[in-house]
């Protein structure tokens, strides 16, 4: 692998010990990945600020002590605390202290305290072809697929190392050829009404990730109305069940004007037809119980957008929910809700707005366990292992209806 003289001098310590550590990690990973050189990046998004144990805190504090500063605009993913409402999180005192230190360390390094897994809906939107280094699996999928920016799936700690040295390994999704689709997904037999429904997209994503692994697909046959929040939900689920860092949607996403364009005019290695039966099976896999009663509803993985709050508001009834109803979002979205006078009515209806974190990464739900209902594929997939809750998957409308009765209410008609 070839380094420029500047990169070599950073590696040799010219910019201080922290930059040298970060460059050493980036160069070593570049070697493992088979990169011929590094590439300059224009921004970073950091997933490494979430507390998983004391090792992550030790690494962040070591970088701070050695004088690390990010060299490109950098946003922060969720931490393990709701900093605006600290009592929301039921962490033990040690975890609380360590999580706080970890979040503070990343702020000290110059990262913007956005605390959201949807930085792309908090103003951080790199353009088509721009090289970036992003962590957090859904953010990676969105940056690559929907924005057309270029990042590999960077694990926690690689993200900050890239941000400090403003470099990433030039390999994989940074290169033209590795971004081309090799698989066509044909959705022509899925009913149009279902393909227009929000509830379809996490299911499609979950199926896509399990079916593809790390291969890149172009999905054909989705309606022109397919919107940003639907693509967000698709990518988040695909990046949970698979190693999906990029997907294309013909006629919708920027590198897929047509199916042929997404394939780079090559023949696909595989054409997979998504059948209605496979859709129903993937939907059923998102639930762990059939469930008659529910104990809580959680929405907002990835973090709820302002538009999603609008959808929720249109469904809000004039009576309170029977079960706790959590919506996770970024503080930037909450500020806009506040400014528009929209927060009060949500709280009055029984909505608990969680910011800076979310319900599957830190203890927020009652530790008694039970059944959680969600419209998020990612919550559905991670809740059983992370917080010990069974899951029922449904649409936003299903979640609101079920929260009003405490029983599972699902509109089956949309599934055909």
């Amino acid at each position, binding site marked *: 692998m070839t380094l420029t003289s500047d990169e070599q001098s950073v590696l040799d310590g010219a910019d201080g010990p922290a930059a040298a550590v970060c460059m050493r990690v980036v160069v070593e990973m570049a070697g*493992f990945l088979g990169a011929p050189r590094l590439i300059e990046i224009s921004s970073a998004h950091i997933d490494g600020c979430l507390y998983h144990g004391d090792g992550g805190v030790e690494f962040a504090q070591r970088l701070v002590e050695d004088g690390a500063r990010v060299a490109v605009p950098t946003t922060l993913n969720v931490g393990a605390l709701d900093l605006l409402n600290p009592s929301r999180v039921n962490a033990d005192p040690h975890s609380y202290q360590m999580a706080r230190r970890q979040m503070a360390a990343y702020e000290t390094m110059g990262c913007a305290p956005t605390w959201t897994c949807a930085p792309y809906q908090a103003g951080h939107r790199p353009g088509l072809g721009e090289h970036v280094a992003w962590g957090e*699996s859904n953010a990676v999928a969105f940056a690559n697929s929907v924005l057309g920016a270029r990042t590999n799936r960077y694990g926690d700690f690689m993200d900050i190392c890239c941000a400090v040295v403003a470099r990433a*390994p030039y390999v994989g999704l940074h290169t033209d050829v590795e971004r081309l689709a090799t698989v066509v997904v044909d959705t022509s037999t899925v009913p149009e009404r279902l393909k227009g429904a929000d509830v379809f997209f996490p299911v499609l994503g979950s199926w896509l990730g399990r079916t593809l692994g790390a291969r890149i697909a172009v999905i054909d046959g989705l309606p022109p109305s397919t919107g940003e929040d639907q693509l967000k939900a698709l990518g988040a689920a695909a990046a949970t069940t698979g190693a999906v860092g990029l997907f294309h949607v013909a006629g919708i996403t920027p590198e897929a004007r047509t199916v042929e364009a997404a394939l780079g005019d090559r023949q696909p290695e595989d054409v997979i037809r998504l059948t209605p039966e496979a859709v129903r099976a993937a939907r059923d896999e998102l639930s762990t119980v059939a469930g008659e009663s529910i104990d809580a509803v959680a929405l907002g993985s990835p973090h709820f957008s302002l538009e999603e709050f609008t959808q929720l508001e249109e469904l809000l009834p004039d009576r309170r929910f029977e079960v706790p109803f959590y919506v996770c979002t970024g503080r930037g979205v909450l500020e806009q809700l506040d400014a528009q006078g929209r927060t009060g009515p949500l709280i009055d209806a029984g909505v608990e707005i969680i910011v800076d974190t979310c319900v599957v990464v830190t203890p927020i739900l009652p530790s008694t366990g039970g059944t959680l209902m969600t419209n998020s594929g990612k919550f559905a997939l991670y809740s059983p292992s992370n917080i010990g809750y069974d899951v029922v998957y449904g649409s936003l409308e299903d979640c609101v209806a079920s929260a009003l009765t405490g029983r599972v209410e699902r509109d089956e008609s949309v599934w055909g």
Partner: protein
Amino acid sequence: MTEIRGRVLFDGEAEGPFLRLRAPISFWGGVDPESGTIADPRHPDHGAEITGRILAVPETVGSSSSSAIMLELLRNGSAPAALILGRVDAILVLGVVVGRELSYKTVPVVEVASEATAAFRNGELV
């Protein structure tokens, strides 16, 4: 003695019972870094202990925090004895790289095509 060939990412010697995961895994959400067991009830190897195992991981999927879980496994002394990765990405082995930077005890990591590890049976001492 069976010999398999692959690419060495972290060299070293290790011995332990072999365990090949039957499905791709996200270490975050899939592995408990304290007990060193497979924690995802949807995973076919749910409940299996990975601590001290020669662990063959065909593919890592899901969370970019899996590197952080690998780091915590090293820190807690609950890591596998060695990792055999079917495909290298910028996530799992990164946890070992950062562990070395923090002077934690690291483990050998090799990249070996998944078919090649079929020579070993689960539980076999390798």
